[in-house]
C-alpha cells in the first residue's frame, strides 16, 4: 500500500517572515519553528492543538535550523543563524531561556545536529566560513569547543551524525564506565564534497572524501541503523542529484554511490524516516517526494507531496541505476 496522507493539523505560527525549519521533538508533542523574522518559536501540538509555549529572541538574523536534543538531557533546543551564532535554549522551571551562545564562527551557521545521546550532549555546527565546530556540554553550565577549520572550502552546508555503534560485542560495561564509541559524522559543503569525520584520540580527522556531485552539496543525512553492518548516507546537491552512499564493511573504508534520481532543480534537503526505510527529498521544484528501497536494492518513489502546480508536478516513478 502506498501511503495516503492527510493533514491533521495546521499550525499557524504567526512568524512574520519566511519559515526556514520546523522540527517535531522526540515524541511528537512539541514543534519548534525558526524564521527569517529572527525568532524561534515552540508550540505544544498534542491532540491536534497548537499552544505557543515560547517565542525565543536572541538571534540577529534569519534563523536557518533548529534541532531538539535527546529528552534525557531535559528540554533542550539548538538554533543556528545567518548572524553567525549558535544558541542552545533550555527549559528551566517551566520557562525557556538561552543557556549557551557560541559566537566562534565568522560567517552564517547553516546547520546544527545533535550527536547520538550515548556520546553525551554534543552539537555539531556547519558554517559558511568553512569550519565545523563541535560543542560539548561538560557539566555545571560549561561547554567545551573543538573546531575543524577549513572542513570545506568556501563553506559547509550540512552536518549529520552517524548512529552510535559500540565496537565489538554488546557486553555490559561496569557502571560508571563509558564504552569506547567510535564517533563519526558526515558533512556536505561548497566544495561539492561529502566528507566523513572520525574522532581519534580526542581529535577530529577527515576519514573519507566522497566525490560524486558536480555542484554544492546542500544536505547530507546519515540513515538510522537497523542492525546491519552497512552504513548509509544520503546527499543532495545544487546539481539536482541525490545519491545514496553505502559502505559495507565495518571499518568504513569503501563507500559506493548510487544515484537515486536526477531532479530538474536544486535539491535542498534529504531526511530519513525513523526506521530508515523511507527517504524524503525536498526539491526546488515545489514538492517533496518520498522514496523507498525495495529488497532488491532499487529505489522507487512512493509518494509526492506538492503544491499542486497544475500539470507540472507529474509524479516521479521508476528507479535509476546510473553511475
Amino acid at each position, binding site marked *: *500500500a502506498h501511503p495516503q496522507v492527510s493533514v491533521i493539523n495546521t499550525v499557524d505560527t504567526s512568524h512574520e517572515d*519566511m519559515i526556514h525549519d*520546523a522540527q517535531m521533538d522526540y515524541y511528537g508533542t512539541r514543534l519548534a519553528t525558526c524564521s*527569517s523574522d529572527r525568532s524561534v518559536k515552540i508550540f505544544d501540538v498534542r491532540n491536534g492543538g497548537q499552544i505557543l509555549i515560547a517565542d525565543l529572541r536572541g538571534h540577529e538574523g534569519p534563523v536557518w535550523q533548529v534541532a531538539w536534543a535527546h*529528552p534525557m538531557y531535559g528540554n533542550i533546543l539548538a538554533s543556528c543563524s545567518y548572524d553567525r551564532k549558535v544558541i542552545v535554549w533550555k527549559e528551566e522551571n517551566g520557562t525557556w531561556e538561552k543557556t549557551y551562545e557560541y559566537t566562534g564562527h565568522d560567517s552564517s551557521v547553516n546547520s546544527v545536529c545533535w550527536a547520538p545521546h550515548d556520546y553525551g550532549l554534543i552539537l555539531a555546527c556547519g558554517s559558511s566560513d568553512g569550519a565545523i565546530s563541535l560543542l560539548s556540554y561538560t557539566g555545571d553550565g560549561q561547554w567545551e569547543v573543538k573546531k575543524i577549520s577549513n572542513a570545506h572550502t568556501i563553506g559547509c552546508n550540512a552536518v549529520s551524525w552517524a548512529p552510535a555503534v559500540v565496537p565489538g560485542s554488546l557486553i555490559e560495561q561496569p557502571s560508571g564506565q563509558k564504552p569506547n564509541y567510535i564517533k563519526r559524522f558526515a558533512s556536505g559543503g561548497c566544495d561539492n564534497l561529502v566528507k566523513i569525520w572520525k574522532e581519534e584520540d580526542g581529535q577530529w580527522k577527515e576519514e573519507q572524501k566522497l566525490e560524486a556531485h558536480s555542484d554544492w552539496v546542500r544536505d547530507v543525512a546519515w540513515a538510522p541503523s537497523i*542492525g546491519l553492518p552497512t552504513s548509509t548516507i544520503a546527499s543532495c546537491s545544487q546539481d539536482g542529484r541525490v545519491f545514496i552512499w553505502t559502505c559495507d564493511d565495518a571499518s568504513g573504508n569503501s563507500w559506493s554511490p548510487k544515484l537515486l534520481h536526477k531532479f530538474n532543480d536544486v535539491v535542498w534537503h534529504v531526511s530519513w524516516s525513523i*526506521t530508515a526505510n523511507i527517504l524524503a527529498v525536498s526539491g526546488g521544484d515545489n514538492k517533496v517526494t518520498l522514496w523507498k528501497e525495495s529488497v532488491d536494492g532499487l529505489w522507487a518513489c512512493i509518494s509526492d507531496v506538492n503544491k499542486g502546480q497544475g500539470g507540472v508536478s507529474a509524479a516521479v516513478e521508476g528507479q535509476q541505476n546510473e553511475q
Partner: protein
Amino acid sequence: MEEPDVEPAVTVVPGADPAAGQLCFAWGPTEVLVCETRFGRTGGSRPGRPGSVFVFRKDEDIYIDALRKLFNESHGIFLGLQRSEEKLAGKSRKAHLVQVSKNYRSVIRACMEDMHQAASKFVPILSAMELIWNLCEILFVEAAAAGPLLLRLLDWVRLHVCDVDNMVREVLSSEDPSKHELFWNLNNMQTLTEMELKWQHWHEECQRYLQNGTFASSSHMESICKILLGDEDAILEKKELMTTWYHFLVTRLLYSHPTVKPMELRFYAQSSMDLFLGRECSPEPLDTILMAAFAFEIHEVIKECSIALSNWWFVAHLTDLLDHCKLLQSHNLYFGSNMREFLLLEYASGLFSHHSLWQLGVSYFDYCPEYGRAYLELHIERIPLNTEQKALKVLRICERRQMQEQVRSICKIMAMKALRNNRLGSALSWSIRAKDSAFATLISDRFLKDYCERGSFSDLDLIDNLGPSMLLSDRLTFLAKYREFHRLYGEEQFSEAARLLLMLLTSHIAPCFFWMTLLTDALPLLEQKEVIFSTEQTYGLMRCLEDLTAGKLDKQKFQDDVETMKVEMLRLALARNLARAIIKEGTLEAS
C-alpha cells in the same frame, strides 16, 4: 528488475501558494511536517501572511482507532499461530491452519457486524477482505481437491452474495428426483470417479430429455434444463440474477464441470469474467485479486492486495498464514520469506502511532527475526512516557528483551523529568535503575543541600533502604552512610555513631559544603556524660576542623557570627573531650 507499476500517490498541500517557493519537510515520530519556504533566501515572504506548518498523518493511522477491535483480536490469533509452529505435522497441521484461517475470518465478520450499525464506510472494505481471504483459504490453506473444491466454492459464493442463488433454489425445488440424488451424493463424499460417473449418467439423461422435447411445452422448463446441462448462453441469459462474474463462474462449474480440478480453475475463471463482463468493462481491483487467486498466483494476490487496500493488516496476516503453509517459496520471488517479514514490519510500525495499540506492535516485531529487534528499538524509544505507569510498562518490555540501551535511556529520561519537577526521591530511584552514577551524584548533592537548608531529608524510606545500590556513586554512598549515622545516634549506639562520623569526615567522600554540618553533628556526642570519642578520634576531629578553617581563611572570612560561634564551640568541646579522654585512657580499669 522490478518496476513499480503504480503511480506514486500525489498529495497536494492545502492552501499552499504554488508560486511561493519550496516545501520544507521534516519527519516526526509518527507524523510529517511540511511548510512553505524559500531555501537559501534570507527572507521576504508576503507580509502579513502568517507562516503555516502542516502536520500530515497517514490515513491508515487516522483510521486505526476504528479498526482497533480487528487489530486486537487478530493479534491473539497471530500469536497463537507463531507459537504452535512445531507441534503439529501432516493432516492435523493442515486442519489447524484451516482453523486459524477461519478464526481470522470470523474476526473480520465480527467487526463487520459491529460497524454495520454505524453504517461505517469500512463495511464494504471488510466484506471484500473476507471474500478474498475466504477464497484464499479454500484454494491455498485447505487446498481443496477436485470434488470438495466445488462445494467449497458454492458455499463461498452463497455466503457472499446477497441474492440467493436462484438457480440452485429452483433446481432444488424441482421434481426431478435424480437431481436431488446428485446433491445428496455430493454431500456424502463419494469417490471422485463414482461421482463423475453418476454425474455423467445424469447429464446424459438430461440431454436426452431436452432432445426428446420433453420440455418443449414449457420454455421455462427448457431453460432450466439447458442451465442444468451447463449451457453457457442459457446461464448468461439469467445474468441479472447473478451479481458477479465469480457467481457466474461457480454456477457454470456446478452444471458443466462439478469435478473441476484446482489447476483448471484459471481457465474457467478467465472465460467467465470475459463472458460476464463483456468487452467494455475493465476489471476492478477486486476482480484482479480474485483472478490471481483462481490462477494460484499467490504472490500476485499479495501484491495486488497491497496496492488495492490502504491498510497493511490484511496482507500482513494473510501472508504470514500462507508462509506457515509453506507456500511462499524464496526462489519464486526476490524476497521470498522476507516478504512476510517486510509486511509484518510495515503493519507493526503503523501501530506505533497509536497511544495503546503500540503494545500489539511489540509482539509482531518479536516474530520478525531479521529486523524486528532493530525496528522495536527505534520505535519504542519514541513512545511518550507521559506517566510513571506507562514508563514502567515500556521498561518491562525492554527488560524482558534485554534491551539494555533502551532501559538505561528511559530511566535517564524519567530521572531528568523527576528532577525538573523536584521529586528527588523519584529522580534517585530512576538514576539507580539507569545505573547512572553521575546523575546519582547530582541528586545526592541536592538532597544534602536541602538538608543543610531545611535540616531534614525527604524520601527517607528510599535512602534508608538503598542496600548495595548505594555504591553506585561515592556521593550516594555518603548520603546513605550519613543517614546511617543519624539512625545509630537515634538508637543511642553512640560509639558506633562516633566511629562512623569520623570515618565520613576522614574518608573524603563528604562534599566540602557538608563538612561543617558533619563537625557540628559531633557536638552532641562530645557533650555526652560518657566519653565517646577516644583521644585518637578527637585528634582526628581537631585535624578536620583545622583543615576546614584553614581552607576558609584562604578564601574568605566566615560569613556570619553563627559560623564563627560554631567553630568556637567545637574547639572548646573538642578540647574538653580530649582532656576527659586522656584521663579515661590513662586510668587503669578496676578489675
